[in-house]
């Protein structure tokens, strides 16, 4: 009997050993799968997984490597981030993708830095993620840009003179975007009132009342999906008459579903609008519909979120960097990254000297209250950015 067990154990040990015999390259996916940003993190991961499904191998030099994704859940919280980051480091990944949420990205940053692993931010828009770092890159636009776009839109298209901003306490994404929005909007001569709610808040009724009481024309809440759905539903119950404005985090079918059937007007800025790339759209949807688990992770339907597109582009950026480096070593990839350019689904990607993508335009979308679908409003760019 004992021999049997020993044999079984030995076989079990051998199976992964055989698998290791192939050339494998590991890419870390550092994303929240739980917590307030869990829904967004899962959608971003889906983009990466889809790209990996389409292109499971990469040829570096003359060797073909199988790409293995290693995921780590940072739980949307900065105190769980270190161990998630450390897990990727201990798995010896060559490059890290993520994270959804700027705070967790910053919190994990030093771990990647110390291990000489480059990281590519997909949708973390806070400037602090890449500032002063040589190892963190990013393929999306930044908050100063997004804030300005939103401010312009609020002023010009929505005709707002007073904006009420609500963010989560201690969330770097919310607070950063609100700050840049405030700068831009006040620069345009508007008035901005900002308030913050503690993590875990469920009752937003008083904040909504505050917005009305201040006489705000726009309710700006660039918060995570979990809070934004709550805000939208409570706004609907209170009959909030003004538009809710949000950042890229709100670009999710979960938010669209919450808005469906209400009278709340929701306007957001984002990276991608469904329909811009037919090939990607159909491929991604087909893939989602084939995998029930994936469909669940996408919020139950096959509406494409911009973050999935960014995940997809991020994966190819990483592959391009690996090929350019000609090595699987993190340091070499890091050195190669600044020069990498690709034409992604979300547009052309090239890095500036801080490691940020050079982007000049953002999409503005709104939810159709009847169908619950995202509708394209405009593509907005800012001069000088």
């Amino acid at each position, binding site marked *: 009997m004992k021999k049997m067990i020993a044999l079984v154990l030995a076989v079990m040990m051998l199976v992964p050993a055989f698998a290791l015999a192939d050339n494998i390259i590991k890419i870390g996916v550092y994303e929240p799968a739980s917590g307030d940003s869990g829904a967004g993190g899962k959608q971003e991961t889906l983009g990466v997984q889809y790209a990996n499904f389409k292109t499971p191998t990469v040829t570096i030099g003359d060797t073909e490597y199988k790409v293995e994704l290693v995921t780590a859940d940072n739980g949307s919280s900065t105190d769980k*981030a270190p161990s998630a980051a450390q897990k990727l*480091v201990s798995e010896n990944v060559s490059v890290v993708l993520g994270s959804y949420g700027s705070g967790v990205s910053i919190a994990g940053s030093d771990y990647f830095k110390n291990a000489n692993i480059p990281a590519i931010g997909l949708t973390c828009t806070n400037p602090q993620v890449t500032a002063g770092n040589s190892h963190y890159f990013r393929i999306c636009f930044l908050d100063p840009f997004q804030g300005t776009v939103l401010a312009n839109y609020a002023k010009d298209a929505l005709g707002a003179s007073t904006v009420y901003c609500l963010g989560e306490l201690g969330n770097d994404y919310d607070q950063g975007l609100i700050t840049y929005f405030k700068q831009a909007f006040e620069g345009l001569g508007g008035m901005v009132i900002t308030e913050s709610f503690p993590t875990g808040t469920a009752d937003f009724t008083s904040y909504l009342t505050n917005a009305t009481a201040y006489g705000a024309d726009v309710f700006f809440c660039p918060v995570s999906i979990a809070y934004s759905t709550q805000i939208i539903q409570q706004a609907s119950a209170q009959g909030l008459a003004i538009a809710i404005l949000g950042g890229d985090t709100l670009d999710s079918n979960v938010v669209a579903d919450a808005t469906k059937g209400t009278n709340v007007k929701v306007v957001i800025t984002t990276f991608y609008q469904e329909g811009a790339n037919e090939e990607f759209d159909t491929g991604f949807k087909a893939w989602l519909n084939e995998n029930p688990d994936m469909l669940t992770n996408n919020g139950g339907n096959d509406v494409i979120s911009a973050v999935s597109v960014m995940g997809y582009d991020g994966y190819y950026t990483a592959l391009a960097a690996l090929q350019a480096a000609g090595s699987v070593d993190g340091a070499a990839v890091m050195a190669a990254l600044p020069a990498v350019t690709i034409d992604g689904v979300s547009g052309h990607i090239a890095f500036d000297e801080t490691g940020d993508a050079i982007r000049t335009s953002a999409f503005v979308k709104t939810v159709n209250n009847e169908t619950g679908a995202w509708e394209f409003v405009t593509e907005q760019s800012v001069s000088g950015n």
Partner: protein
Amino acid sequence: MKKKNNIGSYITLGVVILIYAAVFIAEQTIPSTSMLFTVLKKGATYALVAVSMNLLNGFTGIFSLGQAGFMLIGAYIYGIFTIPVSMRGQVYQYFDGGLVQFTLPIIIAMILGGLAAAFFAFLIGLPVLRLKSDYLAIATLGFAEIVRAIFQWNGLGPVTNGSNMLRSFPNFNDFNITDAQGNVTVYLSTLIPFIMSGICILIIVLLINSSYGRAFKAIRDDEVAAEAMGINLAHHKRLAFCISSFFAGVSGAMLAMYQTTVQAKSFTSAMTYEILLIVVIGGIGSVTGSVLSSFLFVACSEWWLRFLDEQQMIGDFQVPLLRNGFRLVVFSVIIMIVVLFFRRGIMGDRELWNLNFTGRRKNKGDGK
């Protein structure tokens, strides 16, 4: 008896030296990316805070749930005073670089963090320590929540950076010795937290075994009798509370170094509960137990049980139930089993240096 005591102490000393040597050697030989070091660093940090909580809950009989609040204070004070001036513009991006425009040495900032925590403990202790067991627990829990709100308040932004993250302060990796090219020659990033934690725990052990420590234990056993023995309850409770908070503050600073970033919102009551569970698993009233269970707890939650969170295949068979979160379910079940059936925890109220190494078991009084 005295002789045996000494044997225990020597054995303990030997074990401790061996552990430190092993840590040092492991650090030089095993790649620094290994999960082992994460566990050791976090374990050392948690060991200190668990022992500090044990000093209150286990040795003085004060059921306090304010530990996370005091850690927060320590972590913030450390962060605020050690961020390099050149980085302050970036960290305090919304507050024009903040008010504090100097840095303190790491050790001074850590001690200052502890002192600040102790000071807050002194203030809150004046009224709160008069309360009885569970009222005290809930009042300290509330206090921790209040501290969290204060540190997140935008009004204090120039000092605390509001609700935003503090970062860029020296962390454990900065203790590594590097050569001119920036390559690490001697790894100390795990040994240093061990030394910090070790010194603090040693001080707590010395305190527990001093005249004051006996007074604390007397209060725990019987407040009325302790008072009749001339022990000033208010004074001694406050003393234990402040000392415990001091070390909680220091461990907060260590946690900051471990995490490399600090944010008030992560110091929740859930954190205090976690530390309390560590203390319970280790054995209420045992320093050795708290230290052991800290490392076990961290290792299980960060490392050994991680596989439960991922789908595993044995051959073609996919193990059921395994997916994100299962680790924590298993973990909670283990904790409940300990709480219900092994109430004395790993060590009960015994210590490594009191264990009977000669093999003869002495008749122990019935421990409750």
